[in-house]
C-alpha cells in the first residue's frame, strides 16, 4: 500500500532558503542544496521548493538551484512559485523538477491546468491552493498573494474544478492554520478529500508529531507538509515516521 508522505517545504529567495515571519522580515535559513541533502538523508519522501523571488534574476538562480539539487537528490522534487506558462513548466522539468506546483496562474487561466496536463501528463501537475475560512459566509475561499488577496472563489468548487481539468495532485494550505502550529485543518481537508480522487498534500499548522497522526487519522490525505519545524529540527523526520508507524500508518523508513 502507498505510504503516507512527509514533505519538507523550502521557501527559496534569490537562491537561498528563507523563512518568512508573517511574510515580512525574511530570515536566511541556508543553502537549498545542503538542506535538500540533509532531508534526503533524514528520510523525507519528497521535497517542495517554493520560489518566492520576485525578480527575473531570482528565477534564473532557481533553475541553477534545481539543477544542483537534482544532482544530489534522488527523491521527487516539486517546484512552485510564479509558474505561469507551459514554457515555465518545460524549463523547470528540464532542469530536474519532477512536478511543478501552479497557484495564481491557474486561477487566472484554469485552462492552463488542462493544457499542462495534456502536454506533460497529470502526474507532474500539482495545483497549490491557499484557503481561508470566512466566518460571515460560513464557507472557505481561495486566496492568493500569501493569503492577502481574496479571489472570491469557493474553495470546494475550485478543488473539484482543478481535479476535473486534469490536476494530478493538490497542495492545500490552510492560511488560518499556517504558522500557528496548532494542527492541520482536518475538518476542511476531510471534506476536500471526499470531493476528489487525486492525492492531496496537506499544509499549514503542523507543530508536533501528534498533528501528523491526527491528520492521517482524521482525513484520507496522502501527505503532510511543513517547513520551519523541520528546518530548525523541532520535529525530526525519522522520529516522526516511527511515531506514525507505531500508530499503524504505513511509512517509508530508511
Amino acid at each position, binding site marked *: 500500500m*502507498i505510504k503516507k508522505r512527509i514533505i519538507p517545504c523550502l521557501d527559496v529567495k534569490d537562491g537561498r532558503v528563507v523563512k518568512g515571519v508573517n511574510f515580512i522580515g525574511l530570515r536566511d535559513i541556508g543553502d537549498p542544496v545542503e538542506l535538500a541533502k540533509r532531508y534526503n538523508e533524514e528520510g523525507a519522501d519528497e521535497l517542495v521548493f517554493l520560489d518566492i523571488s520576485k525578480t527575473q534574476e531570482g528565477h534564473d538562480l532557481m533553475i541553477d538551484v534545481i539543477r544542483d539539487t537534482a*544532482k544530489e537528490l*534522488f527523491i*521527487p522534487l516539486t517546484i512552485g512559485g510564479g509558474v505561469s506558462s507551459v514554457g515555465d513548466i518545460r524549463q523547470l522539468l528540464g532542469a530536474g523538477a519532477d512536478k511543478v506546483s501552479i497557484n495564481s496562474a491557474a486561477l487566472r487561466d484554469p485552462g492552463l491546468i488542462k493544457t499542462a496536463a495534456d502536454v506533460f501528463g497529470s502526474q507532474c501537475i500539482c495545483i497549490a491552493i491557499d484557503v481561508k475560512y470566512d466566518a460571515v459566509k460560513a464557507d472557505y475561499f481561495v486566496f492568493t498573494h500569501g493569503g492577502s488577496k481574496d479571489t472570491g472563489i469557493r474553495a470546494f468548487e475550485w478543488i473539484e474544478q482543478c481535479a476535473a481539468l486534469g490536476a*494530478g495532485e493538490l497542495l492545500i494550505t490552510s492560511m488560518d492554520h499556517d504558522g500557528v502550529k496548532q494542527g492541520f485543518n482536518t475538518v476542511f481537508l476531510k471534506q476536500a478529500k471526499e470531493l476528489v480522487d487525486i492525492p492531496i498534500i496537506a499544509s499549514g499548522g503542523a507543530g508536533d508529531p501528534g498533528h501528523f497522526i491526527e491528520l492521517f487519522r482524521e482525513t484520507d490525505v496522502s501527505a503532510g507538509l511543513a517547513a520551519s519545524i523541520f528546518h530548525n529540527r523541532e520535529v525530526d523526520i525519522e522520529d516522526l515516521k516511527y511515531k506514525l508507524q507505531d500508530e499503524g500508518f504505513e511509512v517509508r523508513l530508511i
Partner: protein
Amino acid sequence: MIGIVDYSLGNIQNVKNALDKLGYPYLLSSEQSELESCDTVILPGVGHFGNAMQAIESLGIKDTLLEIAGSKRIIGICLGMQLLFESSSEGNREGLGLLKGHVRRMDTPFTIPHLGWNTLDSGYKSLDGRDVYFIHSYMVTEAEDVIATSGYGTDVPAIVQKDSIIGIQFHPEKSGAAGLEILKNAIEGGF
C-alpha cells in the same frame, strides 16, 4: 558505455543524474550506430504510450531496439518498461513486443495515478521489502516475466526480467538509495 535512448519525450535529466552518481559513462542518442556501441541501452519515458511509440517509430528507433535486443542489455524505465510489451490501451497502439503482455489502465479501487512510495514484494532478497517511488496510471497485465510486484488493490508488476531485457515500472532514479542500488544491479547484469 550506457546509451540513453533519446526520443525527445519525458524527463531524462534525473536518469542522467543517477548514472552520474553511480559513476557510469553514458551517451544520449537515437542513432543505431551509437546505440550499438553501448553495452546497455536505457529506454526512459514519461507520458503517453501512443505518443511515445509514434516518436520511436518515426525516428527509426523501433527497428534499432528490435535488432539490438538479443545482444545488448535493455532497461526500460516507467513508460519505457511498458513500451517493451506487445500493446497498450493508452492510445491503442502496439509496443515493441520484446516481452509478452499487454498494458492496460490500472483496475484498482484506489486512487489513480498510483503515486508515491510503495513496497516491493519479490522472491529476490535484494528487492523484497524495498520502498520505491511509483507514478503511473497504466500497468502491465498478462506478463510472464514479473520478478517483483507492489500491492495497490491489485498486484502491480514492478520489475520484469527476461534474459537481457529488464523493465522497471517505478522510478529508480527517484527512489532514494534503494532505487540507485536497484538501477546499479540492473546495469550490472540483472537480478
